[in-house]
């Protein structure tokens, strides 16, 4: 299971990558593996407000629908539209294929997120 060192993680298996005040958000390798073949993603729209801890997207695998929770609050700057036609990209490379790019509202929210090491330890349990 891959867990890049430069990302921050949530208990609900999302990752965050911060670049120039923006946060890219996606799901982890563990999450995509648990979900199995992803067949559809319900994406938010640009300029939607994300609230930390609230669901902002839904991922449908063959078996079931799962919510994706916002690791941080902020306004959506960009949505990865490639996922609309090719949701399987999340299975193929969950770290390259972010879901949304968000303008961070409060950088201190990042402090509550897990490091790669902490996340790996949690997922092992």
């Amino acid at each position: 299971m891959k867990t890049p060192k430069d990302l921050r993680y949530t208990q609900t298996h999302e990752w965050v990558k911060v670049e120039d005040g923006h946060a890219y958000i996606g799901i982890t390798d563990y999450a995509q593996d648990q979900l199995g073949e992803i067949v559809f993603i319900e994406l938010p729209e640009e300029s939607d407000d994300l609230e930390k801890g609230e669901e902002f997207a839904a991922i449908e695998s063959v078996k079931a629908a799962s919510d994706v929770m916002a690791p941080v609050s902020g306004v959506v700057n960009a949505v990865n539209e490639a996922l609309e036609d090719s949701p399987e990209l999340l299975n193929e490379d969950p770290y390259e294929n972010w879901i949304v790019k968000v303008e961070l509202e409060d950088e201190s929210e990042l402090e509550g997120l897990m490091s790669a090491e902490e996340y790996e330890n949690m997922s092992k349990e």
Partner: protein
Amino acid sequence: MKRTPLYDEHVRLHARMVEYAGYEMPLQYTSIKEEHHAVRNRAGVFDVSHMGEIHIQGSEATDLLDHIFTNRVRAMTAQEIQYGFLTNEKGGVVDDLLVYKVNDEFYLLVVNAANKDKDFAWIKEKNNFDATVIDKTDSYAEIALQGPKAEEILQTYTETDLSAIRFFTFAEFEIADKSFLVSRTGYTGEDGFEIYGENDDVKMLFSRLLAENEKLLPAGLGCRDTLRFEAGLPLYGHEIDADITPLEAGYGFAVDLRKERFLGQDVLIRQKEAGLQRKVVGLELLDKGILREGYDVYHEDERIGRTLSGYLSPTLEKPLATAIVPMKNAKKGTIVTVKVRKRMLQARVRNKMFYRRKKS
């Protein structure tokens, strides 16, 4: 949690295990889609040892069964199988099951794993007959070999002519030098067999079938559900339950309203005479998305029903669902709206038997 006799095989095959009805069962070995397509196009083999088996034996075994089961038990001959329901006094479904007739004084019932204890208690409670009801679940292991190549594959292991075993009949014979009970039945919409036997024998057959047949894949509970869903076969707790009658669910063929009497029969007769008020239908989503169970269904802003099962169908490659709706909205082609999380999506009513295999 309980394990079936094939547990070690699942681990060896790297299955993803999940809890189902108190058993640790394989959800998938490689992928639900791949296993689904294998069963539709070639063959797959399932461990279904979790299913419940109940024996009804004795001089009045037929009378007991006739009293609790909706189908025409008295018309059965030995080696025949019937599908039908245990119904409650309100006509709702206690369980759906297969009844295997061994002889006039011996029947084998194969019931849902999740309902087995309830069914056993129910049948015992209704047993005012000279009959014995025995829970034999732990004495049977069972695999289902399903798909267009099922007969060809199994035939290489037995002298018995499998083409002589017609749909919904069974026979007892040797496969790979061991004794099995084999029925031409299944839960996938494909041709195939359900094979019952001793734990070690079933385990041997399962591993030999997989080792010696390239065309055959092990298939998990994940595709078992997508396959039965496409074929319009009900799953207890979804298309049928204590509140949905077999008539509303569209399985009247397995309910004999003219026979002498069974539990709930009077309610079902009245329901039929008065005309059904609601019905289980198929839905095809017209907007982008996927339907799942438990979503509210609307017609012109009025909530009219709910979805019961839903998938992006692997065979049809369309988002499909079953739903229960009022009769007046059940006509094919009716446009309804389904609430998917926060979105209202359009769907069209269609026959819930989404997939029918081509007769060879």
